[in-house]
C-alpha cells in the first residue's frame, strides 16, 4: 500500500515542497524538488532523519566567553539533545582557529564538533 508524505526540504533556503511516495516504508518516488539533493533529503528524512547542529562551547582563557561551533556532518535528529549535553559539558582552551576539531566523533558518529570562528587568547 503506498502512502504519500508531504514535507519541506530544509537543505537550502528555497525550501521546496516535496511529495514523497512510500511503499512498505521505502521511498519509491520524490516530486517537487528543484535539485537532486532534495531527492536524497526526502529518502533520508523518511528513514533516518539527520540534522546539522550549530551551537556554542565555553572557552577558557579566550577573548570571548563562548565560541560558535557546528557538527562537521549532520547527525541523527534523535541525538540532538544528547549532543547538546556533550558539547555543554566540555570547555575548550584558547587560542582556537576556525575549523579546529574540538570534539572528535561526537557520540560515536563520524561527525566532529568544529569551531566556526577564531578565538584569540585573552590579553
Amino acid at each position: 500500500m503506498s502512502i504519500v508524505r508531504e514535507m519541506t526540504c530544509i537543505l537550502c533556503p528555497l525550501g521546496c515542497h516535496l511529495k514523497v511516495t512510500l511503499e512498505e516504508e521505502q521511498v519509491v518516488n520524490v516530486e517537487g524538488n528543484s535539485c537532486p539533493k532534495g531527492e536524497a533529503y526526502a529518502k533520508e528524512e523518511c528513514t533516518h532523519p539527520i540534522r546539522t547542529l550549530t551551537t556554542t562551547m565555553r572557552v577558557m582563557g579566550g577573548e570571548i566567553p563562548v565560541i560558535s561551533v557546528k557538527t562537521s556532518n549532520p547527525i541523527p535528529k534523535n541525538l540532538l539533545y544528547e549532543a547538546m549535553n556533550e558539547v555543554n559539558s566540555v570547555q575548550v582552551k584558547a587560542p582556537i582557529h576556525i575549523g579546529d576539531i574540538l570534539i572528535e566523533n561526537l557520540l560515536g558518529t563520524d561527525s566532529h564538533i568544529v569551531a566556526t570562528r577564531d578565538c584569540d587568547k585573552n590579553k
Partner: protein
Amino acid sequence: MMYKELVIIGGGPAGLGAAVEAYDRGIRDILIIERDRELGGILQQCIHNGFGLHVFKEELTGPEYAWRYMDMVKKREISYQLNTMVVDMTEDRCVTAISKEHGLVTYKCGAIVLAMGCRERTRGALNIPGTRPAGIYTAGTAQRFVNMDGYLPGKKVVILGSGDIGLIMARRMTLEGAKVEMVCEIMDHSNGLQRNIVQCLEDFDIPLLFNHTVIDIQGSRRVEGVTIAQVDENLQPIKGSERQVPCDTLLLSVGLIPENELSRQAGVILDNKTRGVQVNKGKESSREGIFACGNVVKVHDLVDNVTKESKVAGKSAAEYILSRKVEAVCL
C-alpha cells in the same frame, strides 16, 4: 581634520564587501569604522547555517561567512577601527567618530559607503500594555546574549513574531534547555523561510499560532506571564479569545529598521515606508559621493544578496573617487 579617500561606516558583510571591491579597483586610503569589538556585524551572532550558498556554493554558518570577508580585508591590509562609533555625518562628507583609543576625530571623506545595518523594533514601539518587568528582549538581543555572551536569558519563553529571527531563537533557546511555549504570529502566515518552520518549530513540537498577538504582560520584577489573543482581519484582538500564558521571558521578533540616524543628519533621502537609504542602480544615495548597501538600504533575507550589493557600492565609490582624481589632474 584628516582626509580619508574612502570611509566605510559599518564592518559587517556590507561594509567588508564594499571595502574589498573598492580596494580591488585601486583605492588604497580606506578606513572601515566599526562600533563593535570585532568585524563581521550581525553574522557573528548568527551561528546557524544557510549562508553562502550563492556566493561560495557552500553552506556556511554566519561566523564562517564573516571570517571569509574579514580574511579578505586583512590580506589586503585594509585599515579598520573597532569600538569606534560614528556620531555625525554632514552632507559635504565630514564624518566624526568617537572611541576610547582615538577620542573624537573628524574625517573629510572623498567618498562614504553607508553600511550600518538595521536594528530591531522594540516593545515600546509596539505599545504592548502591562508592567515593565525584566525578561522582555528583542530576539536579536537574546541571540547575542546566548551566542556571544554565554547567557541563557530565560527558561520559559513566549515568542512574538514568526520571522526568521524568532524561529531561529525558538530552536536555540530550546536546545539550550529553555521551554519555548509557543510562537505567536499576528498575520495569517509567516514571512520566515519554510525551512525554518520545519527545523526550528516542527522539529521541537513548538506550536505556531497564526492570527495571534500579545496584548498584556504581567510580572513586577520579572515577567510572570503574558496574555495572548486572537486577532481579526483588522489585527484587532477578538474579545473572549484572551488566554494567559505563564512564562518568564518574552522575545520579540517584530521587524527590523534600517539604522539611519547618520543618514538623516547628512540629509540623505530615505524611503518613506522602509526607512532605508534610497539608492540608484549604482547604490549612490541622494547625496553625491555617499553610497549605501546592505540592510541600511533594505532588510535582506540572504547575506549573499548583501554581498552582491556591496560589490556594486564599492565599485561605484571607487569610480567616483577615481573620476574626481582625473578631474583634479586635468584642472
